[in-house]
């Protein structure tokens, strides 16, 4: 089937963009991609830098750290040290994708395919996003957050707000209960809830605690049961609910940062899958456009040049090597699954009996919906890809003088390489395991955190600084116990609360 190309120009206009969106939408529907409605926004490069600075949210509260990001981005961009990414997409409903005005038509089409159909369907389908984010309400919630922070600044001063936000940011990686599903709330109900809490707090205020009989403590010789009964991994939540000295508005700020952390929680764990999925779909959809004669060979050349540079994976000795490129690995795995479905060989049948020869659209859809990077790699990385990437696993142990190569791309090593690579994407690999161990609410009110070491890895140099932030929120002393994997306490750090600052 030959048809006339949508455009032979390299510059875009609104009509052509709409045409592309329609054609890509038609093809995406043929491939059963389920997406939120799209909202494509044309922006300038300055606005793209703003979007960068807001860490990928269209609205955000005021904080100096976003200014820092903006300055860094702007500086690098001005000096030509980096191009801006062609795309940015927001997990919201409707799904907002930014198209930079400087992009050529080809790049715009690529971005539409990648972001507006690839990422969009991933946001809508993947279980982590479904569980942890609320696409319907994120934009509204951020508007609420921004206004609330501004209001707090007006009432309590910029400095006081900044202190709380700084402290929360330091603990931002500990703002999620990874094993408990959150209840979704709409932005409107968030506002109501915030007001209700304030009202309730006012109503409940009394001297009840002071009137409790004191003997209790002396009577029971036994140590009181530890509180919390189980260790809590969500430090921000615990602080929001239990910190003895925080004002209501401060608790609300903690909650805002916690909500933002939760919103980004799935993104960190699905980098490979998300980018791989989006890259796979822009590749597939644009090739189909070409097959139908809707784009010119020149278009394809420009597209492929960009595509290959995005999916380029330098080897470990290369100067450009910055670890495994999630676009490269993700795209290769998606394509590989498609290959295993369509044209499996004997090895594939051995390794992937379930999917070899199955319908690729359904199989990929299943993979996209039900996995995160760690499990996705553990499930789907094939020996063929391990050979193609020439992956090898090493063991770096500080008790030994040398690093050992433990597995390479051979029969003996496939399973090990796959297992190790999957672990590399596990949370425990990049976030130290720190939980609330004890809050001494009846005694000195100190908070004790526990870092359970993973692979004997200690905490880095900024730990005390983070603890000072935690102490600021908690309002009393904060202790951190480092515990070995066997459960024995190795040492304890204590940070005194600076009571003057807490107000």
């Amino acid at each position: 089937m030959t048809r006339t190309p949508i455009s032979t120009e390299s510059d875009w206009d609104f009509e052509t963009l709409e045409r592309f969106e329609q054609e890509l939408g038609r093809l995406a529907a043929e491939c059963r991609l389920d997406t939120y409605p799209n909202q494509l926004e044309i922006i300038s490069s300055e606005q793209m830098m703003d979007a960068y600075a807001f860490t990928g949210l269209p609205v955000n509260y005021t904080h100096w750290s976003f200014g820092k990001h903006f300055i860094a981005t702007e500086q690098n961009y001005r000096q030509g040290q980096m191009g801006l990414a062609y795309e940015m997409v927001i997990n919201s409903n409707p799904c907002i994708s930014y198209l930079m005005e400087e992009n050529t038509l080809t790049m715009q089409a690529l971005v539409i395919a990648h972001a507006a159909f690839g990422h969009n369907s991933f946001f809508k389908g993947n279980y982590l996003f479904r569980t942890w984010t609320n696409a319907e309400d994120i934009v509204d919630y951020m508007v609420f957050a921004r206004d609330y922070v501004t209001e707090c600044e007006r009432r309590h001063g910029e400095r006081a707000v900044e202190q709380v936000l700084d402290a929360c940011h330091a603990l931002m990686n500990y703002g999620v209960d990874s094993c408990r599903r959150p209840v979704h709330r709409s932005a409107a109900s968030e506002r109501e809830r915030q007001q209700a809490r304030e009202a309730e707090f006012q109503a409940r205020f009394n001297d009840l605690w002071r009137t409790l009989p004191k003997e209790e403590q002396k009577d029971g010789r036994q140590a009181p049961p530890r509180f919390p009964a189980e260790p809590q991994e969500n430090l921000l939540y615990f602080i929001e609910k239990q910190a003895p000295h925080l004002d209501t508005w401060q608790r609300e700020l903690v909650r805002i940062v916690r909500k933002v952390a939760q919103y980004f929680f799935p993104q960190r764990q699905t980098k490979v899958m998300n980018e791989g999925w989006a890259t796979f779909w822009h590749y597939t959809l644009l090739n189909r456009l070409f097959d139908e004669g809707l784009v010119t060979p020149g278009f394809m050349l420009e597209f492929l040049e960009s595509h290959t540079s995005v999916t380029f994976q330098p080897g470990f000795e290369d100067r450009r090597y910055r670890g495994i490129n999630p676009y490269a690995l993700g795209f290769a795995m998606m394509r590989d699954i498609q290959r295993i479905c369509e044209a499996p060989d004997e090895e594939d049948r051995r390794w992937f009996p379930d999917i070899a020869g199955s319908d690729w659209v359904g199989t990929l859809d299943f993979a996209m919906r039900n996995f995160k990077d760690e499990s996705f790699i553990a499930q789907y990385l094939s020996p063929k890809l391990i050979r193609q990437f020439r992956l090898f696993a090493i063991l770096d142990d500080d008790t030994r003088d040398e690093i050992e190569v433990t597995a390479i791309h051979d029969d003996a090593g496939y399973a090990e390489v796959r297992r190790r690579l999957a672990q590399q994407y596990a949370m425990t690999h990049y976030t130290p395991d720190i939980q609330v161990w004890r809050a001494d609410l009846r005694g000195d009110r100190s908070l004790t955190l526990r870092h359970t070491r993973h692979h004997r890895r200690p905490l880095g140099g900024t730990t005390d600084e983070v603890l000072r932030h935690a102490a600021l929120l908690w309002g009393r002393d904060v202790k951190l116990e480092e515990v070995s994997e066997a459960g024995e306490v190795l040492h304890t750090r204590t940070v005194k609360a600076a009571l003057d600052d807490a107000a």
Partner: protein
Amino acid sequence: MASTQLIDRRKNGRHKSAENRQRFIKRYKEQIKRAIADSIAERSITDTVSGGEVRIPRRDIAEPEFHFGSGGWRHGVHPGNREFVAGDTIKRPEGGGEGSGSEASDQGEGEDDFTFTLTRDEFMELFFEDLALPNLHKTRIQSMMEEEPVRAGHTHDGVPTNLDILRSLTGALARRTALRGPLRFEKAELEDRLAASRDEEERAQIRAEIEVLEKRISAVPFLDEFDLRYRNRVTRPKPCTQAVMFCLMDVSGSMDEQRKDIAKRFFMLLYHFLHCTYEHIQVVFIRHHTTAQEVDEQEFFQSRDTGGTLVSSALDLMDKIIASRYPREDWNIYAAQASDGDNWPMDSARCRELLTAKVLPAVQYYAYVQIVAAQEQQLWAEYDSLRAAHPHFVMQKIAERSEIYPVFRQLMRKTTS
């Protein structure tokens, strides 16, 4: 996909981050100020009023979070294996960077600086925070007007240099088209009749008519005086915002590189400071030993001379330059003098007289800095006696580089009156 929306956001605000940027600058004001103070060393006096690059250590602005330090053990998977087989051992790379790469960027000795550019205004604001321009006679500035030519459309007459050729020719073309058009139609009609006519007499008559028409057509001039358009300029009064700054420096043998460097920095500060108020600043460099000379910046700071010192020679020259080039009505005049205080004993008194009689009445502000002086020099004493009568005359001593800025601040501090 009927519900897809395509929205043009380019018209929306571009400066969503401006507030956050300001917050950042506010938060790290002290570090940034320090960085600015360091950076002026590398600049030429007039060079960088455009604001500039500021570097602050990345460590200072890091946002801390819990992360892994080095130690323990970990597996890593990397691509691009060529020769390794299982069981091989590799030497640990220097610096233990292996695997820590992008995951823990805050932890290591990643001492590269955070560099960014301040706009001129931000630069000035931070640099001269809580300083005021001394003795600024505001009334005088406002009353001082100069004429500034401004474009104001086009006129029919003017001097040839202002001729707008494009516009003139465009007009001419239009005029020619308008005037020749009807004649050409007429001529074409006659030519048709000529072709159709068989009657010789009629043909001759038509030919004659055509000839007349052709004459009339060719008589339309290519360019008429009427077409000429000149760019028009009118003069508009404009407040004068120009200043001249005199830098006077002693270059006798006793002023070594180090002292000159201190002087340079002081001049530079003053220059930047004046730039906050005045758009155009001229700088006059006068160096002197026993005689004074006007030189360019390069020579001012670099060449060295030996010999005695007559400070008055410089003041003399300055007075002459003011008289010949910088009339007091049009210029805001500032002067800064740097010296080590060494002077011919007889000359110091003459300096005082010159200052009192000629220089000080002409200038808005006169700053004298004396760079290192173990014992009181006579010049200092003479100058000192001027202070009471002339509030816009200030003097300070600087012994070390680090004192420049504090001294400058002291000289320029806001007077709360």
